[in-house]
Structure formats: structure tokens, C-alpha cells
């Protein structure tokens, strides 16, 4: 009995250890009070850079609803392009940006708070600098998208329910403070590829100054405008003159992704890139998915099948006529190095056959138009007035000599004979699924055709943009002549060199060649040529185009008749200059996930989409900012209570 009653002991005397909870296979927050733990936290924090390439938000918040791109054949996220009623405070990608930036800010806040207290070791300043950089970077993204946002500068230990939005002015002040701290703390050169350097801090600091001095902030930035522009130039120059970075010799070098972590990813033009790799354990939930969004559909075309080099065609972003016409496509190599125009047959079984009506000779009737490895799909990027092509007329008994049916490859032609030039109306036989596709992000290294896990680094800052930041700042100060050398740096690089083969083409699909997943015996759709000569309809030449690209004076800008000044209503020199810089940014940075932020900050979004993007109908005064996510308005409190509809409305951006 004594034994039994011993078993029936009272709760107070229970064995404590039985209920102690211990999780042996996971780190916990107390690790952040050690140097090793803070090193780990900083590594984890870098993951947030990958966010900007992870999923649909990467393009919906940056490259939809602009002049460069519109919606392709898959319309899933079209509301970000059209600005229609489906784009609202409940839109998922808006909340994703908001949530993830604040997640990363919390990591940065812990670094900033704990490194000075707990970190011992040589990397102390670097870690702290990385923390300041990340916080500034994340708030910069937030202010660009949302304007005023809550400023949270302390790590979270308990649930905070009440927040107010700090004005954009305060947010910018914090961003500039943090980037400056980062610049002061970070090392000039990094020992590991992908680490944040002093140069990266300077680049983004210059950019932050430029953005603060932009039109969107005109209501309050007059006091700081001039010094901001001077500082933008100062920090851009610090990057340019640091000796750490140089422009890639050939614009293609940036996109010539031959293998995972290949040489293009360590090109000295790259200032900061989100690091992706083929280490499966680091790929996380997404990998770099940008490769999915730009390609147009080729797998359903005759003679074609989907493969590693051609990629998966999500066909979300269709290039606009503006995107093609902003380039001088004869002299500016960047166009031909940014877009894919030719595919070769990798599935000859489905090649089309000559018919009696189309065959060049009777003997060819019934034979395949091409065999595997021959060109199967061509995009002809011509101008209105080109008389060489007429539409394919199905079942015509005697098609014109210019009928596409007479051609061996399947051809997509921008303007057929007699069609007028237009930016908003359809012409030629480009379609929602067949368009000239941006190829900067192609990734033939993925471990299977269907894989969404891209393995290319995502470039976040490169030196060409630093030059454009400085040039714009000079222009905004009215010092146009000083801007010219900076512009020429990128324009000269873009010119064809003497002896350069203008038909030569490369994109990241080429990494299929070094990819162990490639079936060695199978044909590939990859083509190392473009349609430069056929599109431009000029004889083969290899002389340089430097003269045509080089700006001799600001007059070359103001008197240009190919910069759409009339389309977007730019008459004053200052407006023309901004328009020119925005066009140059298009040419240099086409599709590089920045455009909307540039058009919003310069308040040129409405005019440019009206001119170039038929579907996009942004509203002045509303669409320069994203809606504050409803998930934020619905969850926060004011004096312990949920916000009333009126309070929520007051906290929302205007018009949303």
C-alpha cells in the first residue's frame, strides 16, 4: 500500500525532467548570442536576396504594367499589367513582398542589435555592415513599392499589434543612414563570391539618393534634392573608381551562362548578385524562377519539342513594340544579345512538309521542309514598310512568293507588307504566345526540362547601372555635358566591334552543353545565331558601330527623333533628358526587374503605358504606389482594437 500511494504522488512533487521540452535537432534563438550563431544568421539573411528571383512577385511588381512588357499567353497575373479591379489590396504578390521584406528586416535588426554586444572576431564590422545593408535594401524595396511603411528597427520578441506608417521621407532617411553605415563598415573587397561589399553599399546608396530626388517625392524632397543628386554622383563615382569593377567587354559576357557558377557570374561588372547554385539543399522552395517567365512558346511549333536549352515557356511577359523599337537594332548590339530570334529543329518527326503549292521544286513535294538541326523557327524583327513578307494563307493554291508558306522555317514576322507602324495595335503574325522573347535569364543547367529550379545567379547591381545613375543625377542637376561620358561608357560598350559577327548569338540555354542531365544523343533547339541580317535586311558587315552609338554632345539627345519624345510628351530639355535616360535604362537593363520602379518614381508610368502598352491602364495618383496589403490592415490594432473601415482606409494608399 505504501508503494502504491507513493505512485499517487501529488503534482507538485512530480519529476520535473519528465515534462521538460528539448528539441535536439534544431538551433534556437539563443544561438544569436554567439558569434557563430550570428554568422549563421547572416548566412540565412542572404537568402532574402534570392526572394527577388523566386517567384511571380519578381516580375509582377517590377516588369508588368510598364512600357517594355505586357501579358503573354498565360494571363494568370495579368492584373498587375492591366491595373484592373483584380489588382487590389488582396493581391497575393503585394503581400509577399511586404511579408518577406519585414522577415528579412527582423534578421537584420537582430544582427544590428546583437553583433555589437555578442560578436567577437575579425568579421565584426563586416557582419554589422551586412546587417545595415540588408535593412536598408529591404526598406528601399518597401518604399519603392509602398511609399510610407512602418519603420521597425528592433528585433521582435513579443507580438506587436499596433503600427503606423512612417512617411516615405523618414523611411528614406533611415535607408540612407543604414546604407551609409554599411558603406563605412563593409570591406572594399570580399573574400567570398556574393558577399556584400563596400561597392554594393555605395551603388545602392547612390541609387537611394537618386530615387529620393525623383519626381514621386516632389512634395517633400526640395530641401535635399540637390545634395542628394550630388551624393548620388559621389557614391556612384566611388564605385566606378574603386578599381573593383569594370564593364564586361562584350554585353553578351553577362548572359553567357555556360555552366553553373560559371565565369559570367564572376564578371567584374557584377556588383551584387543573389547566389543560386546546383546544390540542391540550398535551392529552398523555389530556386531562381525568372527563366520561366520570359520565353515564348516553341514546343508546339512544327519540328520542335521542349528541351533544356529552350526552357519552359511560361509566356508571362511579352515584349512590346517599344521594347523592340527602343533599340537602334542595326547599331546597338544589346538588342540582339538580349532577345532570342532563332530556334533549330529538335524534333524533325513533326517538321512540316512541302506541298504542291509551296514546294520550290516538284521533287520536294511531300518532303520535310527541314531536318533535325536545321533552323525551324525564325522571328523577323523588321520595321513597317518592309515588303518582303506576306501572311501565310492556308490552303492557297498558288501562294505569293512572299507568302510565309513558301519558307522553310516557321516564321514570325513583325510587319507584313503594307502594314502601318503601330505601338498599340497588332501587326505581323506575332501572337500572345509567339513573340520575341527576352533571353537574359535562360537556364539550360537545370537538372530536368520540367524543373522550375533555376540555378543562375540573379544580378541585383552591375556597373553599367552605376554609370546610368551618375548620368541621370548629372542630368537632373542640369549638367548634361557631364552626363555624356557616363552614358557613353555603356553605349560604346554596346556598339558592335570591328570584325564582330553580328549573327553570333548566345544565351544561358547554352549551359545545356555542360549539363549532365542533357541527353547527349538528342537534338537541341539551341541556336548560336540570330536573325540580325534577315531582320534588318542589310548585307553582311563587320565594321564597328561606335560612331552611331556614341553621343558627341547633349544635342544628340535633345535632337534625336528616335527617343519617342513626341509619344510621351517630352518637350523641355529636362523631360527629354529623363526620357532618354529611361530609354537607355531600357536598352541596358531590359527586363532586369526594375522597370516599374523607375517609371513610378519618375511618374512617367501613365504616359508611357498609354503610349506603348495597350492593356495597361494605370491611374494617375493611384498606381505609382502599390496597395498596402489587406492582410496588414486587417490584422493590426489601434488602441487595442481592430481598425475601423475608416481607419483602414486612412492607412491605405490613395485610390486603393
Amino acid at each position, binding site marked *: 500500500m505504501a508503494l*502504491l500511494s507513493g505512485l*499517487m*504522488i*501529488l*503534482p507538485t512533487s512530480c519529476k520535473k525532467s519528465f*515534462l*521538460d*521540452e*528539448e*528539441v535536439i*535537432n534544431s*538551433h534556437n534563438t539563443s*544561438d544569436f548570442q554567439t558569434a557563430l550563431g550570428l*554568422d*549563421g544568421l547572416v*548566412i*540565412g539573411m*542572404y537568402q532574402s536576396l534570392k526572394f527577388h528571383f523566386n517567384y511571380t512577385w519578381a516580375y509582377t511588381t517590377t516588369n508588368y504594367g510598364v512600357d517594355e512588357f505586357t501579358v503573354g499567353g498565360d*494571363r*494568370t*497575373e*495579368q*492584373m498587375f499589367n492591366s491595373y484592373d*479591379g483584380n489588382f*487590389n489590396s488582396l493581391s497575393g504578390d503585394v503581400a509577399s513582398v511586404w*511579408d518577406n521584406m*519585414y*522577415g528579412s528586416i*527582423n*534578421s537584420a535588426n537582430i544582427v544590428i542589435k546583437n553583433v555589437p554586444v555578442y560578436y567577437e572576431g575579425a568579421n565584426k564590422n563586416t557582419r554589422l555592415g551586412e546587417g545595415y545593408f540588408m535593412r536598408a535594401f529591404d526598406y528601399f524595396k518597401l518604399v519603392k513599392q509602398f511609399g510610407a511603411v512602418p519603420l521597425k528597427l528592433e528585433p521582435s520578441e*513579443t*507580438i*506587436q*499589434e499596433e*503600427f503606423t506608417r512612417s512617411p516615405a521621407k523618414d523611411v528614406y532617411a533611415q535607408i540612407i543612414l543604414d546604407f551609409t553605415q554599411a558603406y563605412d563598415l563593409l570591406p572594399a573587397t570580399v573574400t*567570398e*563570391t*556574393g558577399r556584400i561589399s563596400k561597392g554594393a553599399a555605395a551603388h545602392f546608396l547612390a541609387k537611394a539618393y537618386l530615387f529620393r530626388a525623383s519626381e514621386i517625392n516632389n512634395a517633400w524632397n526640395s530641401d535635399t534634392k540637390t545634395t542628394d543628386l550630388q551624393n548620388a554622383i559621389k557614391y556612384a563615382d566611388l564605385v566606378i573608381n574603386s578599381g573593383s569593377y569594370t564593364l564586361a567587354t562584350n554585353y553578351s559576357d553577362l548572359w553567357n551562362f555556360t555552366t553553373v557558377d560559371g565565369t559570367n557570374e*564572376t564578371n567584374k561588372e557584377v556588383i551584387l548578385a543573389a*547566389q543560386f547554385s546546383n*546544390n540542391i539543399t*540550398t535551392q529552398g522552395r523555389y530556386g531562381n524562377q525568372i527563366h520561366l517567365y520570359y520565353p515564348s512558346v516553341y514546343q*508546339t511549333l512544327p519540328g520542335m*519539342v521542349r*528541351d533544356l536549352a529552350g526552357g519552359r515557356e511560361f509566356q508571362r511577359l511579352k515584349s512590346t513594340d517599344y521594347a523592340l523599337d527602343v533599340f537602334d537594332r542595326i547599331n546597338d548590339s544589346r538588342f540582339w544579345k538580349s532577345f532570342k530570334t532563332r530556334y533549330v529543329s529538335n524534333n524533325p518527326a513533326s517538321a512540316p512538309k512541302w506541298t504542291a503549292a509551296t514546294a520550290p521544286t516538284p521533287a520536294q513535294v511531300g518532303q520535310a521542309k527541314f531536318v533535325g538541326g536545321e533552323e525551324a523557327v525564325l522571328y523577323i524583327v523588321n520595321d513597317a514598310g518592309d515588303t518582303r513578307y506576306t501572311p501565310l494563307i492556308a490552303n492557297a493554291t498558288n501562294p505569293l512568293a512572299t507568302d510565309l508558306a513558301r519558307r522553310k522555317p516557321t516564321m514570325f514576322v513583325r510587319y507584313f507588307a503594307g502594314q502601318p507602324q503601330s505601338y*498599340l*495595335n497588332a501587326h505581323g503574325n506575332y501572337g500572345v504566345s509567339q513573340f520575341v522573347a527576352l533571353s537574359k535569364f535562360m537556364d539550360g543547367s537545370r537538372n*530536368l526540362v*520540367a524543373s522550375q529550379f533555376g540555378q543562375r545567379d540573379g544580378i541585383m547591381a552591375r556597373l553599367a547601372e552605376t554609370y546610368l545613375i551618375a548620368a541621370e543625377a548629372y542630368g537632373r542637376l542640369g549638367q548634361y555635358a557631364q552626363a555624356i561620358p557616363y552614358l557613353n561608357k555603356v553605349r560604346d560598350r554596346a556598339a558592335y566591334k570591328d570584325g564582330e559577327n553580328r549573327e553570333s548569338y548566345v544565351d544561358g540555354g547554352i549551359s545545356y552543353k555542360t549539363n549532365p542531365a542533357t541527353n547527349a544523343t538528342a537534338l537541341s533547339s539551341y541556336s548560336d545565331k540570330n536573325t540580325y541580317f534577315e531582320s534588318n535586311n542589310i548585307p553582311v558587315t563587320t565594321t564597328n558601330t561606335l560612331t552611331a552609338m556614341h553621343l558627341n554632345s547633349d544635342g544628340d539627345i535633345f535632337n534625336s527623333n528616335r527617343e519617342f519624345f513626341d509619344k510621351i510628351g517630352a518637350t523641355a530639355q529636362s523631360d527629354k533628358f529623363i526620357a532618354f535616360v529611361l530609354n537607355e535604362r531600357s536598352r541596358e537593363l531590359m527586363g532586369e526587374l526594375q522597370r516599374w520602379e523607375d517609371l513610378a518614381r519618375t511618374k512617367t508610368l501613365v504616359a508611357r503605358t498609354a503610349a506603348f502598352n*495597350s*492593356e495597361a*491602364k494605370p491611374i494617375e495618383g*493611384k498606381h505609382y504606389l502599390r496597395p498596402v496589403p*489587406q492582410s*496588414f490592415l*486587417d*490584422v493590426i490594432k489601434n488602441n*487595442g482594437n481592430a481598425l475601423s*473601415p475608416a481607419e483602414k*482606409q486612412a492607412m491605405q494608399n490613395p485610390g486603393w
Partner: protein
Amino acid sequence: MYFTLHSKPHHRQNASGGKKFLIMGISALSLLMVGTSAQAAVTFKNESLVIKKGIKNFDETVKGKITDDKGETLVGVIVKVKNTTLVTTTDANGAFSITIPSGTTNPVLVISYVGYTTQEVPVNGRANITIQIKSAINDLEEIVVVGYNTVKKSDLTGAVVSVGAAEIRSRPVTNALQAIQGKAAGVDITSNERPGQLGSILIRGVRSLTASNSPLYVVDGIPLQAGGIEAINPNDIESIDILKDASATAIYGSRGANGVVLVTTKKGKAGRLTLDYVGTATIENLNDRMDMMNSGEYIEFRRDAYRRTAYLNAVNGTNTQPIYNYPVIATQAADREIFKQDPNMLTNLDKGWVNGVFDGSLVPTTDWGDLVTRTGVTQDHVLSVSGGTDKIKAYGSFGYLNQTGTQLGQDFERYSGKLSVEINPVKWFKMGANLTATYGLQNYGFQAASASGAGNIYAAARGMLPLAIPFDANGNRINLPGGDINIQNPVLEADYNINLRKTLRTLGSVFAEVNLLKGLKYRINFGPDFSNFYNGRYQDAKSVNRDAGVPGSINNYAQLNQSNRFAYTLDHLLYYDKTINKHNFGVTLLQSSSSFREESSSLTGSKISLPNSLWYGLNTGNITGLDAFDTNLRKSTLNSYMARANYSFNSKYLLTASARWDGASQLAAGNKWDFFPSAALAWRLEQEDFMKNIKWVNQLKLRLGVGSTGNSSVDIGSTLGLLQPLTYTYGSSAQTGYVSSDASLANPIPLPNKLLSWEKTLQYNLGLDFDILKGRISGSLDVYQSKTTDLILLKKIASVNGYTTSFDNIGSTKNRGLDLTLNTVNVKTKDFTWESTLNFSTSKDEIVKLDNGDMVIDRFFIGQRNGVAYDFVKEGIWQNTPEDLAEIAKYKLNGVTFSPGSIKVKDLNGDYKIDANNDRQILGHYNPSWTGGLTNTFGYKQFDLSIFIVARYNFLIQTGAEPLQGRFAQRVVDYWTPTNPTNDYPAPNYASASGDQYVSALNYQDASFIKIRNISLGYNFTSEIAKKLTLSRLRIYAQAINPGLIYSKVKWIDPDLGGSTFNRGFVFGINASF
């Protein structure tokens, strides 16, 4: 079980159902044959005759026959001469013979038999006596299992509902949850038709706001921790007792908050040996309530979707470039343009155009569903033996279930065994063990690789375009029928995807009981619960989940996940009972420790060079490295103390009081322990003198109970601040790191809340048990009210915190309801009976308090029910009428664009703006206002017919918000066009992939339904015929499953299942006792 990877290019497999049915029939028959040698009766040895001398000097032999109340003879009935030790039993014919010693005055026979009321029959000099004994299945005398004890139903003080073996057997079910569906008031069970999957159960509605509202399952006294009730073969269940009110569940303290389901498995019974066979065969087919557009309808739908942009340009004066400018009058050329991606679609389309006139009925429609479904066949066999003496009792069973799903690739096989032994070697000691083992093999079937894709192969097939075709002229599968890269052909996917889930579950309970003193008993229970889960997955390179269509692809995929759980409960119990005159006392004391441990591992590989190795060859011979790997360990513990006291006076007044202390490991230090008291009173009115004269009242009991229960169902480790591992590569150098939470993940780590404490529910219950008109009307009525405080919720928090969620105690809810069980015998004649059983319950929960006000984001509003829909309110569709256009113009002034054909939502604050802050409201709730089950049973001679109806009323379900883009397959809806000004669905619009801006307002449907779950017709062979077959009992029956919905407002889904498909079929069954 084996797999063959089909290299055959096409043709679905034919269901081999017919053959299986034949096998089942033969096996049942063979069992009948074997049964002939089974000897049924056991005769107890007559103990030594003690003859009292001097009263009578000759012995008298009495012969007789004993039958039950239906006149059937009973075997093994114990016949004893009162006040002697003379005993005999009836033989196989129900006959007995006993010699009464001379000198016995007025001899009386005592007839006892398990399950029957013991009777005393005076001999009165008769030499031949026929005795009919009465079944003890008088509801109020049933034994009911309560926590840690059993009581007579008449002594029950809490709200407990019981489902007995007979009821469980009355329907062929594959799991125990199905068995109690609609049978117990206040217990709401939903269905799941994937073979091997369970539905969900909710007892007395929702109290907790957390995901976990599932009850505690206790099998033979051991709370299940390593899994659910699915491991128990329903045929091994003796009874299921569901504790509903807190005065009953508080005995389980922290675990009783959502109700307790006590399962008692079958045990051997003293008296006789039995051999039982139960066999069923089920044939089912998949039915779909959703009508998909046929080719003709779809073509017109697609045209309308393309016409929309031009229409909007015209009415709104906008200038948007149409994706394709489809003309108002259809043309073949324009049709060809919108279907040009697939030449096979064009071929079919052209069949509809004859001489420039379109006739949609001429365009062939592919029946995609037919290509991925088959007749589902289920066979279920259970063989059980049972027997015992007063010293040893044993039960054993073996069951085999084989279920072929109605969708290709889904099947389930289960082997189950049970053994129960109890030995009583000496009067003061008893020991016993129960062992249940179940081995389940489930082929889960195809699932799309992406989370947003089709959940099963039928759903995937339904997504195919009607005018596309599955195979090309050479018989090869077309991977993209329709030429849309997002519409992939699921036909053959059942062959290309294997998802095998093997579960081995072993449950045990071992107990020893010592009678220490008179009335004092010590018992120790030990319940190990072991579960081993094994999930092997293989996707062939040809699968649409992999590289469908890429020639020469070797990109297959295999994954092996294993986990094993070991949990145990160790209870020490002391019982003390004492009766002093009319006072009855009972005390139960408990100390209990529980432990849960789960170890899991996962391996994933792809491009396996030996595809036939499936997931069995993830080794260096076949792959160069794993794609992913993971091992994990989860542990939790619970420590408890409980004391309970019972008191009754004169069997009239009954009192129960209990107290329990629980400590849980997953709460932070300082908040681990809590206390859960309860008390209950019952008053048996019929025992009162003033009631004894009211002859028509047989039983009447009033119960009042109150109790407190708790809930600590938060994830293991959630107060510890565990970190999210994130690895980053600098260049090619991978380095491990971590952050506190990563918002980009599907389930980011919540903010650790060290202040989190127990969620507690206090519940009052008032109940009435009644039996009137000699059993013609009986049942019970319970009303209850509960209040839950310190609700635990994984609530959303502002992501500005750096976390998106946190567990928190957020407020309180209350819940009130009523449960009614009514059994009536409507007609009772010699040959014909009609009985009804009605279960009805209502439950209304309400959020009483939220610490920080309404939680819009989590959809919790003070004063509202838990689980509400909150959205814009659909009023109709904007029409092209002057009135509507005038209204649209007013909105336009505020920058809100509406057009004829778009959804008209209510402008709640009348400001001619529609925004999420002002114009959303609560639209209804997801939990039903009432649920009910009604069984009508008709008996005519040897036949019985039963009809079982279930109903759930007044609840919302989310379905019907369709984007109507015109890209994907579409169910038939009445959509708006300029010539069809409906208010039902908006105009299709190819330009808008996500549909109308307020499409979510279409999403909320009243899902109330009344459904005939099954109709059963049985035939009980008379004992004479049964005897000729050497059986003691034989019943055969046939049942129709899911004959149909009697009422449902939603036309395109089965609201019971939540999806549009359900299985309908027939069951044939046989129950035989030897």
C-alpha cells in the same frame, strides 16, 4: 501487392472486379463448408451433487427447452437449481435436462445467459418446461464505458452516447468512423471516399479555434497517440461510447476538450464458444454531379470569352487590344484561330461546321472521366472466435479487406488481427492483455505535382478540353491535348505514378488488477501504441508530373518516407467501493504518464538508372546523389493525476465529482500545469414513490453536470524559438545558416510565445433519459452550454514583426446546443415491426471575447460564429439597362469600373466605391446549425429493411467561384452574354485569367443536404434452416450505398463530401455464426 510499370502505350486497364467478386464468393462458401465441423456447445461439468437428506427421498428429472424472445433456441444457457450447486447447460437444440435432488422444496430454476436477463422459474412439479428468456438489451441496463471505469447505463451521470456492435455491423463499413456516422446525436462525421482514408469527426461542434478539434480516442482504456481510430477493424468493436459533456470528459482533462471516443473491443465471454464469419462484397461506381460543357457548349463559351474585350471597349470607350478579335457572328475561320494549338481539336471542330453552318452537337466530346475510372470492388472478410470460462476468456479475430477504388490507381488492402485474453487465476487477481495489429497497404493514386493541381486523377481528367482527344492515330498518348502547355493529359498516369502507403499499427493494452481489501482494488494499465508508416512514391519519366513528352527522358523520381511513432500510457489506478445501507461510495485515483515519440526519415532521388527499382534502389548503383534527405525527431510528454468520487443513495440520487491535473511538455515552463474539475448529479425519478404508480413511465432520469477540460494542442517546440535553417551558396560554396522565420515558406515558423497557457472549456450539461410505454419510446435529451477561455490560436500577426503567425491565447467562445436521441417502436405485431431511431443535434458556437477585438484576417468576429465567410456580397450581374448603366456611371466617378456582365456586389456603405475595408461582410458560417440521422427499420417475418438518412443543415461551403477565362474546361453555368442577361454568372473574359474582380463573392453556397446514405434489405434464416446448415445463425443482406440526395441546393457538388463526385453501389453481405 505488386506493381508493373506499363510500357503499353495506351488503353486503360480493365477492372478485374468480376473476378475478385467470384473469389470472394467462393471463399465465403468454403468457409461455410469448413464450419460444419465446428462444435458449438460446451457443457459445464456438473459439480458434486450435494444432497440434503431427510426432506424428499427421490430425485426428479426436469427436462426443458430454452428459447429467446423470438422463439429461437439458445445454446449454452446455464440452468441452475436455486440454492444448490446443481448446474447444466442447454445443448445444441436448446434442450436441457437436470435432476433435482429429492428433498428440495419448491425447486426453482435459475436461468442465466450472457446478454439476457437472469430468470427464476419455479418448477411447480412440471417435468417438461419451455422457458423463454428475455434479452437484456434494455437500454438502461447496458454497461457503459466511462473514463477509467464502466457503469450501468442507469447509473450514468454524464452525457454519453453508445453505439453497439449490432449497430456497427448493420452497415458494411471499412472503418469505425463510418460506423458511427449519423448514429450518435452530437457527433458530426464527414465522409471521405478515397480508399483507406478517413473522414473527419466533430463532437458537439467547434469550441477551439485551433486546427485540432478532433476528439481523443481511447481504446480499451488506452488513449491513442500514435494515430487515429483507423487501426481498429470495425468488426472487432464491441461498443463505442462517446463522452460528450465535460462532466464526462473532464476525466481526461487536457485531452477531453473535443470529446472522447471510447472504443471497447470484443472480449471472450464466459459461457460458450462461438465462431463467426462476416463477409461483404461491394460494387461501386463513381458518380459526378458536375456537368461539364460538351464540345458544342465549350466552343461557344470560348468564343464569348474572346468577344468580351471588344464588348468592353464598346461599352466603356476603352481601347484595349483584344487578344483575338472574335466576331459577333461565329465563323469557321475564327473558330479555327482560337483552337489552332492542336490539329486534333481542329479536326473535331471542323465536324461541327457543315456548309458554313455551325452545329455544336456534331462536334465529338471526349469522355475523359471514363478513361480514368472503373467499377470499384470491395471485399471484406472477418473471422472471429470467442469463448471463455470463469477463469479464462479469450477472443481472436482475423480480418481481410480489399478495396479497389473507383478511380484508377486507388486501392486499399488491410489485414487485421486481434487477440484478447483475460485470466482470473485466483479470486483476488486478474490479468489481461489486448493486442490489435493492423497492416494497411494503400495505393493513394495520382496527384498533380503542384499543390494547386488536381488532387486525383478523375479531377485531372475532368480538366481536359472536351474536343481534344487522348491518343493519336498511332495509339500514343498526346501529352498536351489541346496544345495548351498547362493542360496535361492524365490518362495513363495511374500507371506512371505509384504512391504506396503502408501502415503497420500495433495497439496493446495490458492490465493487472489486484483486490487488496474488500472494495479496494489496484489496477495498472500499460498501453503501448506503435505505428510504422512507410510511403514509397515513384513517378515515371513519362508522367505529366515529370518530363511527359520529352523524348528519351530518364527523369523519373522516387521518394521514400518512413516514420515510426511510439507512444505509451502508463496508468496506476486505485478503486475503492463501499456500500453502507443505501449509501454507495466509490473513489477512483489515478496517476498517469504518457509519452510520444516520432522518428522520421525521408530520401528523395531522381533520374534513377534502374527505373524498375522504384524507391527501393536509391543507392550509389543507381543514382549519384540524393536530391533531398531529412531526418527528424519529435517528442512530447504528459503527466496527470486524477481523483474521482461517486456517491449514490438508494439508486435514486447519483453524484460524481472528479479533479484532474495535467502537465504538458510543449507549454513553456510556468504554464505547463493546469487543473480540470468536474461534477455531475443524476436523479432517477422513476425510483421515487410518486412515480412508481405511473405505469407508462419505465425509466426517467435527470442529469446535471459541469466540468472543465483543456487543450494544449500546440506544435512541439513552438515555445522554444526554433530556427529556420537556410543554406546559402557563396559562389559554389554552400554554407549553412538560419533565420528566426522565413516568410517565403509555406509554413513559416511562428513567433515563439512563452506566455502561452492552457485553453480551457467549462461546460454545463442538462440531460434527461427516458423510457416510456414499455420501451416503445425511449431516448435521451441533452442541452449544454460551454465556454472556452484562453483560446489557443495560431493567429496571423502583422508580418512587420518578422513573423507572420504566433500561437496565442486570444479570447473566449461559447457554444450551446441540444442533442436528442429518440428510439421509437412504431408498429409491433407478430410478423411486422417498424422501429425508428432519430439522432438530432444542434450546436451554435459564438465568439464571446477577443482580447484585441475582431480579427478580420483570421475571420473571427465577436458575437459571430466561429468559422465564418467574410467577403463581398453578390447582388447579381450588371445589366445593359439604362438603370444599371446610370449606377455604373456613378461608380465610375470614383474610379470604380463596372461593366454590363460583371458581378454586381453590394455597396454596403453606399459611397459608390467598393473596397475591402467597407464592403465586405459576414456571409454565413461553415458549421451546420443542425445535423441529424434517421434510421427506419422494418421487419417482416425473416426480412428486415432499413433506410438510413443523414442530414446537415444551414452551413456554407466554398464552391462555385469560377474564373470563366475560357482557357480551361468548364462546368455548365448560366453565364452572362449580351443576349443572355442572367444574374447568375458573369461574362467570360479571356483577358482575365483570375476572372471577375469580385469572383470570390460567388464562392459561398448553402450546403444544406438530406441524403439517403443507404438502404438495406436483410434476410435472417430461421433457426431450423440455419441448423440444417450447421449454423446457429445466418443472415444475408444487400444494401444500396448512397442511393441519392433527397435535398441539396448546390447542384454541382455532393455537400456531404465537399466535392462533386461520390461513389454509388451495392453491398452484398453474409453474417454467419457457427
